[in-house]
């Protein structure tokens, strides 16, 4: 068994450290596995929904929408099948938490899926997994086969009559398919272009049927909420924003990686205590707190708690709670260039402001970084970015614009220095 030889138990969400894995269903059982499922199956489905609502689980895919509230949007049973779709497309740059569950600890994710399917009475579940996660796809498929053999899937679930199938569906390298309506298009075999909303997937989703879409970590939280009870789960986090949270840390820090803590640890705890501070103990220049679409913060924000509301109050977003740190010797224009390139490349092209605007942003930032910027470029960037926001079908437009606005505002002098010197003062070519 490739369980890394160790039986780790680090936390509620992160049970494995780097290089460790729990891929044996019986090991999961001995670690309290399926207790939450049995509790849920003993309850009426609407009570499970209520429990999830009370637990204050905010969606961990980035937007932080309360899971129980979303489930409540499902229409009354009208004979159409209902689907549960799991968003395992993890593509937001600097985010690497869902891959952990998929590759190293799939059973809590799958147990959360079984509980959620019961709660919303979905008989079919599709897990949309990023195509690059080839190992993760194999791991999930094997774990699902093991569940079936052990009687947790099929015509009954752990002894309770409830027909349930779970399938893995591979993505194929398009970031936009992480957006939930594009994901559904992709699952239907089409190009992943986001749909106009409303209608929302809860009423018209996969093949026109009521569909709930949730993130991987959200599923792991559903399991914990059932295991410990809604009150206990809520108490582990912040008011209305319950539970433990997986935090990512990357960039120029001593100990990058995944960490678990209660919802709302400060950036300082994550970066300085857990992460050991910056490389060479250099001063922090910028912190991207939750994936590249979240506005960049600075060292004065180190004491902001990482929860959905506090991050918003600080002018950014929690996003995927994956902080990326860069220090004073790093060119912020170069960092923004990587971000602008990404969103220009990944725009699906169906809204003109996003298709054209992301291209302009990329070209202007590129020119500045390469010493070809012109006076007025900062204004041009800001106005191009503002032209995109709020004028598009999906939130990719905003995701492309927010970093530009925040980088130009925060690092204005660095941008102007590039333009005045006709080169990158940090030596980028």
């Amino acid at each position, binding site marked *: 068994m490739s369980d890394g030889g160790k039986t780790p138990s680090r936390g509620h969400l992160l049970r494995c450290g*780097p290089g460790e894995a729990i891929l044996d269903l019986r090991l999961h059982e001995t670690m309290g596995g399926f207790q939450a499922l049995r509790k849920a199956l003993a309850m009426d489905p609407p009570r499970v929904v209520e429990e999830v609502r009370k637990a204050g689980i905010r969606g961990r895919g980035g937007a932080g929408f309360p899971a129980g509230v979303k489930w409540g949007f499902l229409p009354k049973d009208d004979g159409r099948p209902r689907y549960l779709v799991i968003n395992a497309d*993890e*593509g*937001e*740059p*600097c*985010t*690497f938490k*869902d*891959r952990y569950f998929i590759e190293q600890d799939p059973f809590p994710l799958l147990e959360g899926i079984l509980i959620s399917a019961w709660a919303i009475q979905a008989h079919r579940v599709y897990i949309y997994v*990023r*195509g*690059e*996660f*080839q*190992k993760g796809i194999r791991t999930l498929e094997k774990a699902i086969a093991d569940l079936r053999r052990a009687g947790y899937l099929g015509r009954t679930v752990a002894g309770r009559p409830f027909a349930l199938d779970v*399938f893995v*569906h*591979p*993505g*194929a*390298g*398009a*970031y936009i398919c992480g957006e939930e309506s594009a994901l559904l298009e*992709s*699952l*239907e*075999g*089409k*190009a*992943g272009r986001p749909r106009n909303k409303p209608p929302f997937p809860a009423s018209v989703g996969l*093949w026109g049927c009521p569909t709930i879409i949730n993130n991987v970590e959200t599923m792991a939280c559903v399991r914990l909420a059932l295991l410990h009870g809604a009150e206990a789960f809520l108490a582990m986090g912040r008011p209305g924003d319950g539970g433990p949270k997986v935090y*990512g*840390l*990357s*960039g*120029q820090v001593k100990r*990058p*990686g*995944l960490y678990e803590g209660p919802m709302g640890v400060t950036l300082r705890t994550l970066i300085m205590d857990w992460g050991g501070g910056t490389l060479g103990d250099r001063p922090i220049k910028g912190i*991207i707190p939750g994936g*590249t679409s979240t506005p960049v913060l600075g060292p004065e924000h180190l004491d902001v708690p990482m929860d959905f509301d506090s991050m918003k109050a600080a002018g950014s977003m929690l996003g995927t709670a*994956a902080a*990326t740190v*860069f220090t004073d010797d*790093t060119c912020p224009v*170069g*960092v923004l260039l*990587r*971000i602008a390139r*990404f969103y220009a*490349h*990944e725009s699906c092209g169906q809204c003109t402001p996003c298709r054209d605007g992301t291209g302009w942003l990329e070209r202007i930032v590129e020119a500045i970084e390469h010493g070809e910027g012109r006076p007025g470029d900062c204004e041009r960037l800001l106005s191009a970015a503002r032209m995109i926001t709020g004028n598009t079908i999906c939130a990719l437009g905003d995701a492309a614009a927010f970093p530009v606005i925040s980088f130009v505002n925060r690092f204005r002098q660095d941008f102007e220095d590039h333009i005045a010197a006709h080169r990158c003062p940090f030596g980028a070519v």
Partner: protein
Amino acid sequence: MALEFSAEREREFQEVVARYPDRQAALIPVLYLADREFGFLSPEAMEYVARRLDLPLTRVVNTASFYTMLRKRQTGRFHIQVCVNVACHLRGADGLLRHLERRLGISPGEITPDGLFSLEGVQCLAACGNAPALQVNYEYHEGMTEEAVDRLIDRLRAEAAPKGGEATRE
């Protein structure tokens, strides 16, 4: 010669189609099967998929052209994809990519003349906590250094070297 799935691929095809209440939903998984079976998605391969799923060819082409992982052209036997996004950029991805270009003598988008390697800069691979990262045929190599890349290339070359007799493809 008309294209045809091998017996094993055919079994996978049947299994994939059974997962969905709708034929088109099987399209991306089946395009993967065709990619694997025929090397890449040539026009003939797409026609074959359209026929097998009973879908109009335009619909197959529309979907296939949207997704970068569905290969419309040949890649090297070892397709190396280096992440160039922010977290990797902050840990030296640019230098790593340049090192690979020099070492292999190709630029991103090209294939070495012996057909062994192709190179590409790609977006975040969700390995940011262990950057810089790359994939070879979608297998992860993380926390890479120039030395580690050199060892990797040597190992892949050795793996591909003919053992005694003729080199066999695959």
